[in-house]
């Protein structure tokens, strides 16, 4: 790979790495506005849960993909681990789903640590390719190891204990849990925006060799970012499993799902606080609109949208809004 010199065109460099102390305030404002969604759109909770949940997972993806600049196309592994660990513990051991979700986080962190330690010596597209291979192998193994996962027939969750008296299958409850998750992910991102660790990651993203020269340990920092990203994605996966109520390895570990998370972040803007949220809203909400008005054409428009974003808004649509506001 040719080494790209510190690129002055990179969004983070262009707008200044520190977006200002008010960013946390914005996080709270946006979350507070979103909290009214179930009240306003009480008939469209399923869509709301999907948008917020995917926004949360895309933001988690962005911790590695955007802030650290390591393009992963295998994050479905953590969605799958989160969902399966939770479900299998519920079904086989009667463990409550929230503890199951924690166990999923543990499992995801272990997997991410091994995965990162082995493949982080690869850079750029090589890391992305390796991530596809890891995810595809995981999918095939999950599909075939029936005694562990239930195999291709999938698992279903007929009933769950109540969480603090709340019905976990209620879309309203799921929405607020997803919102909390999104909040966690965005707060993590906003911390990356300002903390020393965040600067390290951004330095690695811009030029790994230069970062090493100033005393940053890229492999360690990349692995740490990967762990955080995996843990948050895994929580999202557990909730996604509950939301679906039934799932199979081919859906939970699919390359499509991995690519979708990355696309949401890119379309909204990587390495920004709200980019993944904007991307998730556009892609999930948009495909629902397209499904109704352009039946069968939604993927086509999806593809077109991606091309247009790359050509005309390479930093993501979220940053277009920002630029317009600054003018």
């Amino acid at each position, binding site marked *: 790979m040719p080494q790209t010199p510190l690129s002055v065109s990179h969004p983070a460099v262009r707008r200044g790495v520190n977006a200002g102390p008010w960013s946390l305030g914005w996080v709270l404002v946006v979350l507070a506005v979103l909290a009214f969604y179930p009240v306003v*759109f009480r008939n469209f909770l399923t869509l709301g849960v999907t948008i917020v949940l995917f926004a949360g997972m895309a933001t988690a993806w962005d911790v590695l993909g955007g802030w650290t600049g390591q393009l992963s196309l295998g994050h479905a592994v953590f969605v799958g681990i989160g969902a399966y660990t939770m479900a299998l513990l519920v079904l086989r051991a009667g463990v409550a789903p929230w503890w199951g979700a924690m166990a999923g986080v543990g499992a995801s962190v272990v997997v991410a640590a091994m995965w990162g330690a082995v493949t982080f010596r690869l850079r750029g597209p090589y890391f992305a390719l390796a991530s596809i291979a890891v995810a595809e192998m995981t999918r095939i193994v999950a599909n075939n190891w029936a005694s562990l996962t239930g195999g291709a027939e*999938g698992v279903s969750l007929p009933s769950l204990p109540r969480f603090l008296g709340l019905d976990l299958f209620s879309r309203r409850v799921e929405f607020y849990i997803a919102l909390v998750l999104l909040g966690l992910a965005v707060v993590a991102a906003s911390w990356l925006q300002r903390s020393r660790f965040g600067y390290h990651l951004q330095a690695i993203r811009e030029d790994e060799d230069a970062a090493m020269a100033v005393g940053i340990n890229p492999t360690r920092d990349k692995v740490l970012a990967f762990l955080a990203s995996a843990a948050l994605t895994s929580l999202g996966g557990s909730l996604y499993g509950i939301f679906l109520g039934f799932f*199979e390895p081919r859906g939970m570990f699919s390359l499509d799902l991995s690519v979708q998370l990355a696309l949401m972040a890119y379309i909204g803007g990587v390495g920004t606080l709200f980019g993944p949220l904007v991307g998730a809203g556009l892609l999930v909400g948009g495909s629902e*609109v397209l499904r109704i008005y352009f*039946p069968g054409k939604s993927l086509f428009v999806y593809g077109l949208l991606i091309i247009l974003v790359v050509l005309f808004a390479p930093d993501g649509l979220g940053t277009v809004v920002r630029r317009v506001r600054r003018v």
Partner: protein
Amino acid sequence: MKQMIMALALVFLVLGTAGGTSGAAPASGEPIRIGAISSLTGSFATFGSMERAGYALAVDDINTAGGLNGRPLVIDLQDDTSSANTALTVAEQFINSGVPLILGAYSSSVTKPLAVYMARQRVPLLNSNSADDSITKPGSDYVFRVGQNTDAYVKPFFALFKQLGTIKTIAILVSNNALGHSVENSLLTQAKDGGYPVVFDQAYDEGLTDFRPVLNRIKDTGADVLAMSSYEADAVALMRQIKEVNLNAKIFAGAGATGFAIPSFLKGGGDTVEYVITSAAWSPDVHYPKAHELFARLKAFMGGAEPSYHAIRAYAGATVAADALRRAATLSPEGIRAALQTTSLTTPFGTVEFKDFSGFHNQNPLPSILMQVQHRAYVTVWPLDVAVGKVIYPTPVWTARK
């Protein structure tokens, strides 16, 4: 973001009216609307278009015959884009708009999460075409299935084997998905019960397509029967390569229907699919009233394309729904559920009753039939009372064919 929400809100306002299928009808009065979810786009769209035809004709017939006690039936058919997530979104919108009954979906992988959701919402789901056993086993009080499950697909094969007498061993090759494994389990159980050793049992990963290495292994086992389950493209590829590696079995069985029992199998497979025996849910040869007539009308509706049994089962599903709506004490989900449970109806597809048996719940116990490809056409060969042709057995070896 705000604008997007506004745009979405607008869309939702018109959502309830989009995509409806309604029939001009002598029935007057306020229409009764029920929901239907099918895969009109995406990987299962071939089957979704069959379901659409079945629903549309059923609505026409119901409404010209006086509707539901004088009120016309409207089936609001929505696309799930072959994705479970979309199906759940659509189902919620149906339920929130007061729909008391939903028909669907096509694929087992969409129907399973949908069934879990519907049971939780306590709104009945009437499924016509998903085959996976687990949808009604254990099932739930709110999930009803008109169509045959994989156990039923596999059963007539063993009846046939018993009658033929000279069959000893079975090899199994199924696609590595929910349907494939459901067929595999049914085959394993029934082979064990019938005392037929299974000498080979594998699932293949979908996607590609070089079956030669596996087929060579099966050839070595010398199994009498090769039982398979695949979607449409793989079914043809399998038969072609079976010929290529010169694998000879006494019976090539499409044990899960699906890819082996649709018109494109005949067209794509040419002479390699000759003599294949497949289970099927239905054929025009069955003795039910108006079966041949319905087949012709469906064909006309689909612009001359040959309908598969999926269209007829969707027709039957809509007919069963209308029957339950007529009999229901109240047009609430509970009222309709109670009415569905006492269904006893003869449709062009066959009799429909929802029974509990051997672990199944609210499952229509209709048997499957067997069809054999003879002279590039499906000929019903089993059970004997509806058969129009005799089974050609054993399958001629490849070298003996022209």
